[in-house]
């Protein structure tokens, strides 16, 4: 099995991808949306042509909006406005401030989130993330509770955890880049996507590891001598098609959701696409090779 024998090549590729993601997070940073920071978000759409940013900015400033707001083009005829909390008065004048002669505007979506709700969502997101990780760890521990040789069961669990960390770093890094390119912000939907990736991706790894242990058991029963790397490679060969296929069907629906689905879940679908791809990649190219590498080190 080439993936196992040439594992260092794949470790290098994986390392490079993770490094790229970390650099992306470090350089671009994550922009937290109003779900977590509190503030105002408005989707403005023009029936005719939209005015340029400078004109709209002046008009909004005249309407009493403080300087801290940002405008970003969205779609072919709209803007996304992000601002801190607005007063009743500002809300009242907003509709008039964005309309111009010849290009009437409407506010398609207006969301205001107060600081306490923002703080609450931030804490909830954090707790949910920790809780999902914890539950999945427990689940992995449960799935690998039967001790097996030559690699002890906690090693399987640890490697499953390493692949999970990989599966999260890649989409987060990707999202940092997306934020830089399109102004995407980390919101509750993004956290939902990450948690969904965690739940989905752990499974592929468990399937291949289960097969490794099954083959080890069969070998033992039949008194067959086989190198661990060979057993692991054979197990991977037996399972990688189903790993890819189960992910492919999900990726198909996600791709459709991204390309023609509702605008509001587009970034969500893209994050899931990247995360589930990363999850499938790691279960094939990272998990089993790591297992073999650990076993080799143990033997030395």
């Amino acid at each position, binding site marked *: 099995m080439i993936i196992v024998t040439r594992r260092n090549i794949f470790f290098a590729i994986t390392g490079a991808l993770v490094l790229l993601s970390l650099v992306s997070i470090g350089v671009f940073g994550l922009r937290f949306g109003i779900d977590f920071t509190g503030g105002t978000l408005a989707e403005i759409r023009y029936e005719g042509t939209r005015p340029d940013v400078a004109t709209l900015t002046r008009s909004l400033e005249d309407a009493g909006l403080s300087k801290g707001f940002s405008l970003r083009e969205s779609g072919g005829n709209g803007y996304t406005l992000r601002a801190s909390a607005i007063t009743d008065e500002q809300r009242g004048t907003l509709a008039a401030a964005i309309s111009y002669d010849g290009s009437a505007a409407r506010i398609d979506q207006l969301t205001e*989130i*107060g600081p306490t709700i923002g703080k609450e969502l931030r804490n909830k997101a954090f707790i949910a993330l920790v809780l999902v990780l914890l539950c999945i760890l427990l689940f992995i521990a449960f799935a690998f509770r039967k001790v097996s040789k030559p690699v002890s069961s906690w090693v399987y669990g640890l490697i499953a955890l390493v692949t999970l960390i990989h599966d999260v770093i890649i989409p987060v890094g990707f999202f940092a880049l997306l934020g830089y390119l399109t102004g995407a912000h980390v919101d509750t939907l993004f956290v939902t996507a990450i*948690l969904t990736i965690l739940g989905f991706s752990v499974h592929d790894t468990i399937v291949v590891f289960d097969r490794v242990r099954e083959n080890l058991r069969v070998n033992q029963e039949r008194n067959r001598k086989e190198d661990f790397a060979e057993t692991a490679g054979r197990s991977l060969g037996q399972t990688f098609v189903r790993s890819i296929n*189960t992910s492919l069907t*999900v990726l*198909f629906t996600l791709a459709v959701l991204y390309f023609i*689905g509702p605008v509001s*879940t587009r970034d969500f679908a893209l994050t899931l696409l990247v995360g589930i791809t990363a999850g499938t990649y790691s279960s094939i190219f990272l998990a089993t090779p790591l297992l073999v590498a650990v076993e080799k080190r143990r033997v030395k």
Partner: protein
Amino acid sequence: MWQKRLAALIVLILGTAAGWYVYSSEVSASRPFKLGLDLSGGTQLVYRADLSAIVGGDVADSMSSLRDTIERRVNLFGVSEPIVQTQHAGTLAGAPEERLIVELPGVTDTQKAIELIGQTPVLEFRLLKADAIPSDISTSTVNEYFESAAITGKDLKSAQIQFNQAIGGIPNEPVVLLTFNAEGARIFAKLTKDNVGRYFGMFLDGSPISIPVINESIPDGKAVISGNFTPESAKELARNLNYGALPVPIELISTQTVSGTLGQEAVTDGIMAGVWGVVAVILFMMFWYRLPGLLAAVALFVYIVAVLALFKLIPVTLTAAGIAAFILSIGMAVDANILIFERMREELAAGKGTKDAIHDGFARAWPSIRDSNISSMITAVILFWFGTSLIKGFALVFGLGVLVSMLTAISVSRTFLMALGIEAKGGFSRFFFGSGVSTRI
């Protein structure tokens, strides 16, 4: 054999019945899908209730009275199917908070929605603290000088305009007569009896309107607000109080408005994505798994109508995130089939006949299917707990999808595969059960 075919027929009939139910209830609008505000268009307002003036364990009572009052007012303005609910929240926001959530479908002007709620007056009663002088009271010093009285706006039964006839007042001055309900009258009687000689402040929306001295116990549950009213302003106040006065002040902390057009677009795009998602998955399954793939497609249809029927029956409020979860679940629903078919292929390769291969394939794939669904359920349950209404919509659909798909993928496709009754070991059936580009592992 005929038993298995009968079972398959029953599954098909049940699936068709569920499909017919979903279709007919949608066309006749007898039980349409419930759409969240982000799909139907509308406004959601979240208020924080200021309960600092509420004494003791009256919180739950005040909140339900607050909800009733707002609900009455919203209904008054003819908003169809509004939702007004209270929420105890904020343990994670620092201090615990009592919140009021108002959902107004069809109201897509945030400012108008806020004004609609904002016209509801807050009526409060407070006693002047013993050492304070009532002359220099302003809105900012209210809390400094006054302590809360046991009676609140929720004890009010009715308000009406009168013209002052009392000696000592301005003749013919318009005043508002408050009548308390039985409970309120009892509290008011005790309050006035215990506090003779003290100043009793009546506050409307936080400003003192009238601060009379309590001369004697008032047993009949009536109080008069006199505060430089014009006949018009007294009339308006009486009307607003009759529609309901808020027992506690509320503060707007969050709003969300989605226009009807944006919601409609999301629905259309969501349906299109769903349809093409199903097409893509089915094409793939039939290309890769041939005959079993076709059966998986039938099982997928059964899954889809079953979930759609559940959406209507439970009912589940669908949001854009919920639609995304449903489309995602379509891709995941066939995963159990993939695990089963791959296992079947291995059994076939090991030289078993198709019948045994089907049987063993199902049995051996089960632990994997169970495990994959457990990890997804963990996520769904935690997301449901974590959720704002948006995420709850996702989690509910996702969790429901995982559960139902597990049932349909196993039972439905198994029933169909068994009903086919292919026993042969020959090349013909092997081709139909073969999969992928080659049969080599």
